[in-house]
């Protein structure tokens, strides 16, 4: 107890004094395994933690649970923890889902730090507010790795796909298809994701950046689909009922539902940019000749595996980029191939992009979602 207080005293005084405290040191690049852990940009800094010997205790602190993506992510994490390549490096792997409750998520992270876990990977429920757990993680040399919904800070190592680039690519594709059809202005539908987190914000920023730069008179109708097929279908149907016809659509998620709403309303098939749901890819493959020219870019649930791998690499003492960029898995209507990047004989509701061969993450979407609950454990 006294030790703890002395530690706390040291920590408090160093923070207040603005001096350096325990945690990663900033080092010069390049980092370990750059094909897998690609730095976000050339000027990204590199972090190095004191090397520890494994096997390590790792925890996954998930927030919201209850959509297919999160379930696929959790299953991927559990399957990857059993992968022969890293199984021996993990002593214990624990998963909790706290719901969209910031104090509960912060509490869970702090609890795992108290329990002596070596690394914690997490999908943050809010891009802000983690100052306290970052301090505590640094003090205890715990590697905290936010991925997917990342934090607005450069004090921790993070793993993500470039959401701004994803938004830009979506908008560029739709504009390109519209230009090919001779349209340089018109009405677009933007289906947004879960309000209030960084992924939704950045994707939308990317979309609007490209639209604004194009100089065309684009009228954008925004609806909130929460990255969910049912919600997206409903709000798309409402938007069509209110606004009539759209020239193009950009949907952050729930894209199968968006297309379903188009078909139900008898809306003509238009260029569409969306996520990587199997159902969306199936529909694009079937209807691209009718005008449903689609691009599908996925936020892969397999990001969790890369975050886990990065955490282990950091624990082994390798220099790591502070922000790790995982390449966008892109497929447009010309590139879709049944059995390769979509599966016409499998259900709609799983995410087609899951594996990252350069990182040795080979857990495929159909494989993981086809397994029953009993088999994954």
């Amino acid at each position, binding site marked *: *107890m006294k030790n*703890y*207080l002395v530690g*706390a*005293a040291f920590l*408090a*005084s160093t*923070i*207040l004094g603005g001096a350096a405290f325990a945690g990663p040191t900033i080092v010069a690049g390049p980092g370990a395994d750059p094909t897998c852990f690609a730095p976000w940009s050339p000027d990204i800094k590199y972090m190095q933690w004191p090397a520890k010997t494994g096997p390590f205790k790792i*925890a*996954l602190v*998930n927030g*919201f*649970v209850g959509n297919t993506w999160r*379930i696929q992510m*959790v299953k991927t994490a559990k399957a990857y923890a059993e992968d022969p390549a890293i199984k021996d490096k993990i002593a214990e792997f*624990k*998963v*909790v*889902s*706290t*719901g*969209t*409750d*910031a*104090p*509960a998520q*912060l*509490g*869970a992270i*702090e*609890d*795992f730090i*108290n*329990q*002596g876990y070596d690394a914690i990977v997490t999908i943050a*429920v*809010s*891009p*802000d*507010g*983690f*100052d*306290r757990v970052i*301090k505590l993680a640094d003090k205890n040399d715990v590697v905290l790795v936010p991925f997917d919904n990342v934090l*607005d800070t450069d004090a921790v190592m993070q793993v993500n796909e470039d959401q701004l680039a994803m938004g830009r690519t979506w908008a560029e594709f739709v504009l390109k298809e519209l230009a090919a059809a001779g349209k340089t202005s018109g009405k677009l539908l933007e289906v947004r994701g*879960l*309000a*209030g*987190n960084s992924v939704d*914000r950045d994707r939308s920023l990317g979309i609007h950046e490209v639209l604004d730069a194009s100089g065309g008179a684009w009228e954008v109708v925004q609806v909130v689909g929460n990255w969910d097929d049912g919600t997206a279908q409903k709000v798309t149907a409402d938007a069509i009922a209110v606004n009539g016809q759209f020239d193009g659509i950009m949907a952050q998620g729930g894209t199968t539902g968006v297309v379903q709403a188009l078909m139900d309303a008898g809306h003509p098939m238009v260029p569409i940019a969306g996520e990587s749901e199997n159902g969306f890819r199936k529909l694009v493959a079937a209807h691209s000749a009718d005008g449903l020219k689609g691009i599908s870019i996925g936020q892969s649930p397999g990001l969790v595996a890369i975050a886990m791998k990065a955490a282990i690499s950091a624990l082994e003492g390798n220099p790591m980029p502070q922000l790790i960029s995982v390449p966008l898995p892109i497929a447009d209507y010309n590139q879709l191939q049944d059995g390769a990047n979509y599966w016409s004989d499998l259900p709609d509701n799983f995410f087609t992009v899951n594996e990252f061969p350069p990182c040795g993450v080979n857990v495929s979407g159909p494989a993981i979602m086809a397994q029953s*609950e009993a088999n994954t*454990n």
Partner: protein
Amino acid sequence: MIGRWLAGNRGFAVAIALFAVLFVTYNLMHTRGFSTAVLVQNANESVAIGFVAMAQTVPVLMGGLDLSVGAVMTLSACIASVMVNGTMGEIVFGAFVTLLAGTSFGFMNGLLVVYGRIQAIIATLATGAIAIGLALLIRPEPGGDVDGDLGWALTNTVWDFADTYGLAQGGEAAWLQPFINIPVPLILQFGIACLVWLPIKRTVTGMTIYAIGSAEGAAFVSGLPINRAKILAYTLSGFFASCGGLYLAIQTSSGNADMVQAGAYTLNSIAAVVLGGTALLGGSGGVIASLVGALILRVISFYFRILDIDPLLQPLIEGLVLLAAVSFGAGRTFSIRNRLELFR
């Protein structure tokens, strides 16, 4: 004496016992159980839900319901994320404005229910949406700049608090030593609960809140100040909810107009009220009891971090444990003499 208290507060007593068992077992199983670090962590995680549960209790005591508590907490957190920084004077002023905003919001709920004659559920459902709308206006994107020292001081032990602000010789003063390991959030939470609720409960208006829940007609013909009590109940609800929001903003040094989180807190507040032994029909229970109910709710989820439970089964198990706990609290139905009592 104890026997009489038990007879009158059966639900509360069950809640305390249940919490004690769950919490001690959790600490026994935890690798660093019974340490200050674990207690501080547990306390921090429980403050916001504790305050929101307290906020929900007061309207429930008179047979009402406040569906805006989570939203008022969120609104207050967003206000605090803008206001609570700068000099010590500015911080205190910001905290005051935050609490005043939440309290006024509760007062407005009370006016709507009493003079607008709108049913509480519908009135607070609507005002909850208004609160979220205002929160989004204030903070369209998550963020904020709450004073970091304040955050560190209030989310740690008394020693850290004294050390941060150089009080009591930086926490080394002899008189402070018995208290240094107590988490500040616990003091804040139980302090506000006792200092605000216990005195109010003993006033005529306070007792009228219970009387309305027991039998509103009887309370009316007895000449009790019904309207005043109802307005007070919703005002207190707003006050407690804004305490939760203020703490949430300080804890996360930011604000986030998160609608889903607001909804989850409102629902959990009702669960905490029931777990604490307060009757949903009103008339019996109390604010401190709901605080214990909120702690039970939290401690159940603590177990998922030390046990190996499939993550996809966790919500199911949490629900089952909750149902069992509530059923256990309703055990009195087996011991009543007259079945008519059930219809009270």
